[in-house]
């Protein structure tokens, strides 16, 4: 589904990604781990199409189609979803109005009419229940005054509503207590099926107890330096990243 081929990327002329290749198939969960500043979030941003990040070399394709030149919204229309590490506060726009707008904009891009109000309402209710989200929460301004846990839960709620092909969860576990983490992970697992894929970006192995990856990749200094199974995550948890560095030398 997703092919990243030898991607180099920079922000403000600083090279961050230095030749990343990654292949993700439908039905798979990939975890991307690595120390701070290794390029994990940059990789997420470059897939989602953030303008400040410049792809200097390489290609990204979704189902064989090159998306490197597409705008962020066009990538979303192709089924890419990024759960933000720091979701942005938008005062004056309720969670409900925001998600309605997003869904209908996606439909518009596909040449579909707006989703009928009753269907929208039903879907919102269903997905809110899945993530144990209180109805009152839906009429609040998007992310304004939300706790860390509420913000992340709201991200996964949006993912549930938009049903992306490829979901990238950027540090979704940060700022979550164990109960919130379970709810979020449970939501992701229920949304997971054979036709979609998930990339989990995380510092810690903790989240991977709940969202079990098929593959684990370690990024260091803008490159994937090691790939393996879930076992690799345990090793990293136990031994840190230094042994990989030593291995590389």
């Amino acid at each position, binding site marked *: 589904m997703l092919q990243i081929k030898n991607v180099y990327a920079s922000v403000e002329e600083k090279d961050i990604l230095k030749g990343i290749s990654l292949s993700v198939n439908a039905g798979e969960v990939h975890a991307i781990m690595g120390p701070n500043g290794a390029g994990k979030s940059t990789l997420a941003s470059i897939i*989602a*199409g*953030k*303008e*400040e990040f410049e792809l200097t070399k390489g290609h990204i394709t979704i189902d064989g189609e090159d998306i490197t030149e597409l*705008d*962020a*919204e066009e*990538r*979303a*229309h192709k089924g*890419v*979803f*990024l759960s*933000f590490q720091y*979701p*942005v506060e*938008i*005062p*004056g*726009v309720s969670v409900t*109005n*925001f998600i*309605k*707008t*997003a869904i*209908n*904009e*996606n439909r518009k*891009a596909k040449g579909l009419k*707006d989703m009928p109000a009753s269907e929208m309402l039903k879907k919102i209710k269903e997905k809110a229940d899945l993530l144990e989200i209180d109805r009152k929460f839906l009429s609040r301004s998007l992310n304004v005054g939300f706790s860390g846990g509420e913000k992340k839960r709201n991200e996964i709620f*949006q993912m549930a509503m*938009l049903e992306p092909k490829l979901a990238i969860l950027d540090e979704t576990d940060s700022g979550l207590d164990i109960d919130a983490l379970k709810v979020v992970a449970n939501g992701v697992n229920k949304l997971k099926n054979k036709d979609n894929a998930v990339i989990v970006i995380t510092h810690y192995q903790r989240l991977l107890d709940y969202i079990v990856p098929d593959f684990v990749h370690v990024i260091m200094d803008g490159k994937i330096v090691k790939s393996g199974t879930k076992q690799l995550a345990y090793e990293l948890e136990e031994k840190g990243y230094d042994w990989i560095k030593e291995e590389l030398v």
Partner: protein
Amino acid sequence: MSLKEKLQSSYLAFEDHLQADSPLHDVRNKAMKSFETKGFPSKKEEAWKYTSLNALLNKEYSIFPKNDTAIEFKDVKKYFLNDIDTYKVVFIDGVYSSFLSQITHDVIDVCLMSSALNKSKYSSIIETYFNKAANSDSLTCLNTAFAKEGAYIRIAKHKEAQKPIEIINFATGTEAATMLQPRNLIIVEENAHVQIIERHQSLNDNEVLTNSVTEIFLEKRANVDYYKIQNDTQNASLIDSTFIQQQRESICSVHTFSFGGKLTRNNLNFKQLGEHCDSILNGVTMIEDKQHVDHNTLVHHIAENCESHQDYKGIFDDSATGVFNGKVYVEKQAQKLDAFQKNNNILISNKATINAKPQLEIFADDVKCSHGCTIGQLDQEALFYLRSRGIAKKEARALLMYAFANTVLEGVKIPELKGRINKLIANKIGVNLGFDL
């Protein structure tokens, strides 16, 4: 002949029709003299530093425009609030249009300034209120000298206007350039309530200069919600001066929506004379091209235990220019005050300009006064967030602009008006988001 000279000779002609030796005539003469001495304001004056009238003053305005132009209701229907029933006081080129209006004398007076100025039964009211709240700025004086028509509204004690009142001034643009000087007087007695919507609207692209003055008196516990919709054509300019006097426990809110016009200057003056008054000044400015909007506010706190809240949002595109000059003046005896002023601006283009100047002058020592002013661009991270959800750039920008203006919009208490303003904003940005904020 300069505009000033033209106005002077026009005044002499106008005076011929007036009753000599009346107190009102004295007020006019004095006002005219004051205008003659001061002349039009120039950029040398602090209050006009960022707004120049020069380009407006060299036009050949017709001071008393012909008024034989008929307007069909269907052509102007869109300027009215059609979804709900309203009182309407409508003027065409400064002349009352009974055809388009719906006035009343039943319990409340929603009628004409010309009646109030000329009929003897109103003479004591005119003596008590006319020009008593207005200041002596030269343009206000000019309006006072020429005042002859506008809305006269009086809500009697403990009464509530059952419908909002729309005051609409149409300019037909029959003449190449027209000058209009409407004058409104609004008296809201003890515990009375009223909602008013004011609009100045040109019907073509000819030059129009409107110098409007409104005086509003709120007696004890009176409540006024006033909405100004400024969405005029590209050659229409407006100098709007509103003077509000509040007695104890009265609440007055003024929302100003400035969406278009060549040059718009809003002078909004509040004077709180009694304790426990609340004054609310809100505004959304959204302009582009070379449009100019200047908000000049003054809240004069004289009594104790009062509040004032100002929230002005501005979005400026292309080469548009904006001014926010907000002053809160607190007298020594106005203790236990809570005054708050906020002015936030977004510059969409590199050529847009905003000059913001918040001023607090405080002579009391036990007050809470705060102000904040920001100037920035649309938040890029927020824009990416919206776009990453599949919302196209244009819609995402619109959504952020809506969100930005929302704190002001939510203060609009007439749902149909709020819906209308939402539509105006959507039209301006060129998108339909499918929901109202």
